Structure formats: structure tokens, C-alpha cells
């Protein structure tokens, strides 16, 4: 802990914190106001990750400039989020697609409609087990 | 520092080492697992006896784990009461283990021997610890091991009863934690001896909290001890458990009673303000109701194991009638009866198994069945166990009941206590006589069901249990003096506070 922080630190960190908070709020607002699940999915996967990223960078900067401590580990949180957020989104989207196909989503498909099957004989992996030897079937028991 | 200096912790260490070793060797070399288990129990018994010898002159051994002085670290306290419970546990363990091995009960599922050792570790730890949170931890160890053992062999009855047993105990554990939190918040310590000193300083405006905490803690112990109306979990659980396990469980309810005896005088004794002798208004009525319910259950039960289970409740009630006096005399009587009733209950469960193993489909139901192997001998065993369980002469139960009768005569409510003790004995006698005569004397129509094959080997464990009861009766002079001294020691918390709070730090 050191004495008073430089003004630049105050400004930069404040900006990052405000930015982060704003993005987090916007992401969650999107979650509430967008019309269907697929649209809502965009809010959290992007806005909140960047919102969080901004706050984390703010934290790094703060500890460096104000406290004089190098703490980089906050960046790790972002790394994990960037690796995992697309997977979460993918899995949720799959649930949506699956339920859509099963007719279980009460409000239907949303403005984008139901996705067409891909060209050719095969369907989407959520509806049809990945074919042997394709990238979708390279692992697992 | 020699091994003797570590005496107080050995009863915990021995099974805690034996269990993982058994776990490791069991897959490849089951015989070695058995050897380790038996060796562990024998060593435990030897250790416990050595400890009993050491503390019998009134010495209190305090062992500060990690050499962190009490009250800052965890301290184990070996006094007369603890040594007695350890000897009892080790004896019971040997009997139950012998029976399990002879009847091959250990083969009916996974990890029996390892769980058995863990169970012993939990029991021994609970009897030794001088720290309230550590008591909670050992409660959990012995409980989780008991879940595994209780479910050993599985089958729908066990599983169903198991769910209830586990859930009820989870609630009990939650209460324990709440009580612990409150006591820590009020006293700032976890060491029982220290807490006993600090409760006196609880300010007047916190007396309500203190009393609530004390009541919660006591009710947790009551739940473990299966004191009415917190006993509902017991009959089914014990009746469906593998008999060797049920025999070991005979000590489980006694853990609750032990904790009550240990904690109330030490923490909620004279100086505890609103929490002083906190179970007082409730304990005697609850004990009386337990005794009545227990022996009424013995009276109407329809199988030997069910009878044994109810007998456990009844004997706890009887025991608590003595404890409720909180005098050295009555507590001493109670401790003697505690040792007796534990072994008696174990004997009953084992005899029930011996019967069930011989009667094929009839099991231990209280109905006429086939004439089975060694019927006379088994009948004698049953009779002896029933005599023990009801407290008739010449076994130790009688002496225990006489001790209780004599000691509670000084209490204001002695009439109730006497009436219940004598009345429940009567109900018990009638109940066992009915069931016994139906099982051993009455024979079902020829050819209805074949008796099971049997060897004499499984008569050994119950016979040993009964032999111990004979020894307890024969040695009642010494035993009752010991029990009285143990009670006096427990009721003088200053003694143990001195030992724990000064010696432990060295």
C-alpha cells in the first residue's frame, strides 16, 4: 500500500470500472429485453465478458499504479472466460435447438426462425449423431 | 517421549492406520485385511486397558495434539470415564468383528472391515476429545462410517431405513453446528474445560442465548442417544442392520449418553447461569418415557432383532433415569449400567442372528418355526441375553438396576423412577418370555420349512458377550467402585480443567 494514487491511475481505473459496469449492465439488459433466447445469448457472451475484462484490467492497473503491486493474475480470469464463454453459449444454443425440434419451447423459434438443415444429407449434430470420421466424432467413448 | 506418553491418542491412531491399510490390502489379500482388523482391535483393547490402569488412580491424562496448548489446540483427555468407554468399545468391537468374520457378514458388501475400523476411530475419538468441535468431527466420522455399516449387505429394508437414519442424523449434525456456533460466539473457545470456565462470565443479557445453545446441544446428544421423542429413528435402523453391525451399534446410542455426561457437568454445571444443569427439567420425564416405550416395544415386538432394538431404547431410558440425578452415586450407577446394557444389547442382536441363521425362512420372527440345530444351547443363550437385557439376576443388569434404584432413592422423584424401572423390567420379562417360548419351544407344523444348516462357530461371539456380562457381575464390586469414581471425576470439572489447561501445554 502506498500513499495517494496518481491522478492518471484514478482516471484510467475509474474509466475502466465505469465501462465494465456499463457493459455488464447492458449485457444483462439485453438478456431481459431481447425477443428470444438466441438473441439474448449475445448479451452475456460478449457484453459481459468485455465488461468483466474492463474491470479486470482496471484492477491490474489499479494495483500497479496505486498500490505499486504487480498483479497480473486478474488477466487469468479473462482467459478462462474467453475460453469457456463460447462453450457455454454453444451448449445453451444446442439446448435451444434441441427443444425447438422437440417442440418444447413455448414461444417458438424467435425472429430468426428455425435453422435450415445444412446442405447435403446430414443434419445438425444436435439432431443427428456426428458421422464417424468427421471432426464432430473424433473423441469420446 | 515413549509410546506410553502417547497413550491417549493411540486409540484414535490405531484404527485410523488400520482402516486405510485394510482398504489397500483387501483387494489382493483379504486374509491380511482380516488379520490387520483383528490385530487393530486387540491392540486397541490392550491400549484401552493400559489406559484404564493408568487413570484408575484418578490421574487425568491430557494430550495436546500438535503440542498446541489447550485451549488453543485440540486436547485429548483420558480420564476414568473415557478409559471405561474405550475398554467397552474395544471389547464390543472384538465381539462384533468375531461374529462378522464367523458369519462371513464382512463378505456381503464392500469395505466392511475398513468402515469398521473407521467407525472405531470415530467412537474412540469421541470418547477422548476434550474439544467440542472435535467432538462434532468425531461424531461425523462415526456417523458416516455407521451409515456405511448400517447399509452393509443392502436390501430394500436397509436402504429404506438407511435414508431415514441418515437424514435424521444430518438434521442432528446441523443442530450441533448451530449450538457450537452460539457457544463459540458467547465464550470464544471450543475447549470444553475452558468453556466450562468461561460460561460463568457470560453477561446477563446473553443468558437466553446461552441457555438456547445448551438446550440445542443437549438435544443433539438426546437424538443420538435415542431419547424419546427423538428415538423414532432407532427401532427400524437397528432391527434391519447386519447383526454384527447392530451389535457394534449398541455403543452408538451410548455415545449420546456419554456426551451428555461429559458436557453437561463440565460446561453447563453449577456456574453456567441460565444454562446450569440445563437438561434438568426434561431429562427424567424423557428418560421415563423412553424406558416405557422401549420395554413396551420389547413387549409387542414381533422379531428378536426388533425386540433387541427396542431394548436399546429402554435401556437408554433406564440409564438416563440414573443420569438425571447428576449425583456421583446415581451417575456411577448409571455408568455401570451403561457398560452392562451395551454388552447386553450386543448379545441380544447376536443371538437374534444366531437364531435367524438357523431357522431358514422363519428368520428371527417371533413365530414357531422348525426345530433347529443346537436349539437348547441357543435357547440358553437367548435366555441369558434376555435376563441381561431386562436386568434379572444373576447377570450384571440386576446389579446395575439395584445400583440405580438405590442411588435414585435420594431424589425427590424417586417414586416415579422406581416404578418405571421395576415396571419396565416386568414388561420386559413378559415380552422376552413370550417371544422366547414361541421361538424356542413352539414348533411349526412338520415340513413347513427346513431349518438352515449351522455350525457351532457362531455361538462364540454372543457367548463371549454374555461371558463379559458374567464377569461384569462377578467383578461388580470393583466395577461399581470404578464407575463411582469415574462419576465423581466427571462431576468435578475443576479437576479436569486443571489437568487440561495446565498440563496440556507442556
Amino acid at each position, binding site marked *: *500500500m502506498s500513499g495517494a494514487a496518481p491522478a492518471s491511475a484514478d482516471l484510467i481505473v475509474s474509466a475502466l470500472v465505469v465501462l465494465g459496469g456499463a457493459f455488464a449492465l447492458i449485457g444483462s439488459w439485453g438478456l431481459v429485453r431481447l425477443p428470444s433466447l438466441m438473441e439474448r445469448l449475445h448479451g452475456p457472451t460478449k457484453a459481459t465478458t468485455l465488461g468483466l475484462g474492463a474491470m479486470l484490467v482496471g484492477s491490474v492497473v489499479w494495483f500497479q499504479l496505486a498500490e505499486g503491486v504487480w498483479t497480473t493474475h486478474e488477466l487469468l480470469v479473462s482467459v478462462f472466460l474467453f475460453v469457456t464463454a463460447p462453450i457455454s453459449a454453444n451448449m445453451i444454443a444446442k439446448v435451444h435447438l434441441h427443444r425447438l425440434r422437440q417442440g418444447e419451447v413455448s414461444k417458438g423459434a424467435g425472429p430468426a426462425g428455425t435453422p435450415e438443415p445444412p446442405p447435403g444429407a446430414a443434419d445438425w449434430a444436435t439432431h443427428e449423431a456426428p458421422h464417424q470420421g468427421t471432426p464432430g466424432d473424433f473423441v469420446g467413448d | 517421549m515413549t509410546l506410553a506418553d502417547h497413550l491417549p491418542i493411540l486409540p484414535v491412531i490405531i484404527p485410523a492406520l488400520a482402516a486405510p491399510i485394510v482398504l489397500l490390502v483387501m483387494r489382493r489379500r483379504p486374509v491380511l485385511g482380516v488379520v490387520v482388523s483383528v490385530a487393530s482391535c486387540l491392540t486397541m483393547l490392550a491400549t484401552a486397558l493400559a489406559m484404564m490402569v493408568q487413570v484408575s488412580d484418578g490421574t487425568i491424562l491430557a494430550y495436546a495434539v500438535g503440542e498446541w496448548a489447550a485451549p488453543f489446540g485440540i486436547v485429548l483427555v483420558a480420564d476414568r470415564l473415557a478409559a471405561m468407554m474405550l475398554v467397552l468399545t474395544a471389547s464390543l468391537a472384538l465381539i462384533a468383528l468375531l461374529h462378522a468374520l464367523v458369519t462371513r457378514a464382512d463378505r456381503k458388501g464392500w469395505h466392511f472391515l475398513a468402515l469398521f475400523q473407521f467407525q472405531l476411530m470415530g467412537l474412540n475419538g469421541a470418547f477422548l476429545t476434550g474439544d467440542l*468441535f472435535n467432538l462434532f*468431527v468425531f461424531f*461425523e466420522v462415526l456417523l*458416516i462410517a455407521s*451409515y456405511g455399516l448400517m*447399509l452393509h449387505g*443392502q*436390501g*430394500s*429394508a436397509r*436402504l*429404506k*431405513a*438407511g*435414508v*431415514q437414519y*441418515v*437424514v435424521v442424523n*444430518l*438434521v442432528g*449434525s*446441523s443442530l450441533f*453446528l*448451530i449450538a*457450537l*456456533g*452460539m457457544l*463459540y*460466539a458467547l465464550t470464544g473457545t*471450543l475447549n470444553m474445560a475452558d468453556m466450562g470456565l468461561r460460561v460463568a462470565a457470560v453477561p446477563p443479557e446473553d443468558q437466553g442465548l446461552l441457555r438456547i445453545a445448551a438446550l440445542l446441544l443437549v438435544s443433539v446428544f438426546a437424538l443420538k442417544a435415542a431419547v424419546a421423542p427423538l428415538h423414532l429413528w432407532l427401532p*427400524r435402523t437397528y432391527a434391519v442392520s447386519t447383526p454384527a453391525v447392530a451389535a457394534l451399534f449398541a455403543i452408538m446410542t451410548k455415545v449420546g449418553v456419554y456426551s451428555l455426561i461429559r458436557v453437561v457437568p463440565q460446561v453447563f454445571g453449577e456456574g453456567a447461569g441460565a444454562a446450569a444443569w440445563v437438561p434438568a427439567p426434561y431429562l427424567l420425564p424423557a428418560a421415563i418415557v423412553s424406558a416405557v416405550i422401549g420395554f413396551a416395544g420389547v413387549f409387542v415386538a*414381533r*422379531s428378536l432383532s*426388533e425386540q433387541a432394538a427396542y431394548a436399546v431404547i429402554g435401556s437408554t431410558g433406564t440409564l438416563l433415569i440414573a443420569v438425571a440425578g447428576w449425583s456421583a452415586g446415581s451417575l456411577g450407577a448409571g455408568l455401570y449400567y451403561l457398560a452392562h446394557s451395551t454388552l447386553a444389547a450386543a448379545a441380544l442382536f447376536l443371538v437374534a442372528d444366531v437364531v435367524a441363521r438357523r431357522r431358514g425362512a422363519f428368520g428371527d*420372527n*417371533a*413365530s*414357531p418355526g422348525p426345530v433347529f440345530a443346537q436349539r437348547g444351547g441357543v435357547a440358553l443363550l437367548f435366555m441369558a441375553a434376555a435376563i441381561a437385557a431386562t436386568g434379572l439376576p444373576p447377570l450384571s443388569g440386576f446389579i446395575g438396576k439395584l445400583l440405580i434404584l438405590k442411588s435414585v432413592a435420594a431424589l425427590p422423584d424417586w417414586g416415579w423412577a422406581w416404578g418405571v424401572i421395576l415396571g419396565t423390567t416386568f414388561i420386559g420379562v413378559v415380552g422376552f418370555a*413370550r*417371544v422366547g*417360548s*414361541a421361538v424356542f419351544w*413352539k*414348533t*411349526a*407344523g*412338520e415340513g413347513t420349512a427346513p431349518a438352515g444348516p449351522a455350525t457351532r462357530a457362531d455361538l462364540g461371539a454372543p457367548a463371549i458377550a454374555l461371558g463379559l456380562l458374567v464377569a461384569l457381575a462377578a467383578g461388580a464390586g470393583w466395577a461399581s467402585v470404578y464407575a463411582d469414581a469415574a462419576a465423581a471425576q466427571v462431576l468435578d470439572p475443576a479437576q479436569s480443567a486443571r489437568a487440561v489447561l495446565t498440563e496440556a501445554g507442556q
Partner: protein
Amino acid sequence: MSYEFLVASAIGVLVAGGIYLALRARTFQVVLGLTLISYAVNLFLFASGRLVVGRPPIWDKAVSDYTDPLPQALVLTAIVITFGMTAFVVILSLRSFLETGSDHVDGDKVPCDAQDGMAGSIAEDGEDTRP
């Protein structure tokens, strides 16, 4: 509104919900009830060290004032134990359901020996089977 009120009321609400669910008839609900209760209990035990903001018990030369570390250690132990117990009870109830086909915690309403046709057989010792 104080933190103390928030925590205390949260504990109360969790306990109330837990008790209510624990008294339901099926294992899943009971397990949920126990889970709520254990949250409450952990918070309660934690609260025995009172609420302190911004003074974690990480020793530092420059700091003289910490929150009480002991309840934290106790809660940690309690969380672990509770987890073990919860896992056990969940699997036990599952196993029990698989064995019996029922997930009702009340088991059978009929006592276990009512079906075996021996009720009363010891009370009336009437007939003889051997001459």
C-alpha cells in the same frame, strides 16, 4: 438496512425453507431441504465470528486487526463434512429408489411385519403341533 439484518434474515429464511422441504414426502425434496438447512448452518456458524468487511485473516506485518479466523476454519470443515454427507444421502436415496421403486421417504405405511401373518401368534398360544 444493516448487513447483520441481511445475514440473519437470510439464515432465517433458509432455515424456514429447509424445514418445510425436509418435511415433504419425497427424497428429492428432503435432500433440497437439507441443502437449504446446511447453507443456513454454514452461514450461522460463520456468523459466530461476527461480520467483518475487508479484514481477511491473512497475516500481514502491517495489519493488526483481522476478522476471527476460527469460525472460518470451522465452517470450512463443516462445508466439507456436509458435502460428504449430502453426497451420501443423495446416492443413498437414489439407491433406495432403485431397489424399492419408491422415492417416498415414509417407506411403507404398513409396519414391516404386518404381512408375515404372524401377528398375534405369540399372544395366543393355543394349538399344539406335537402330540
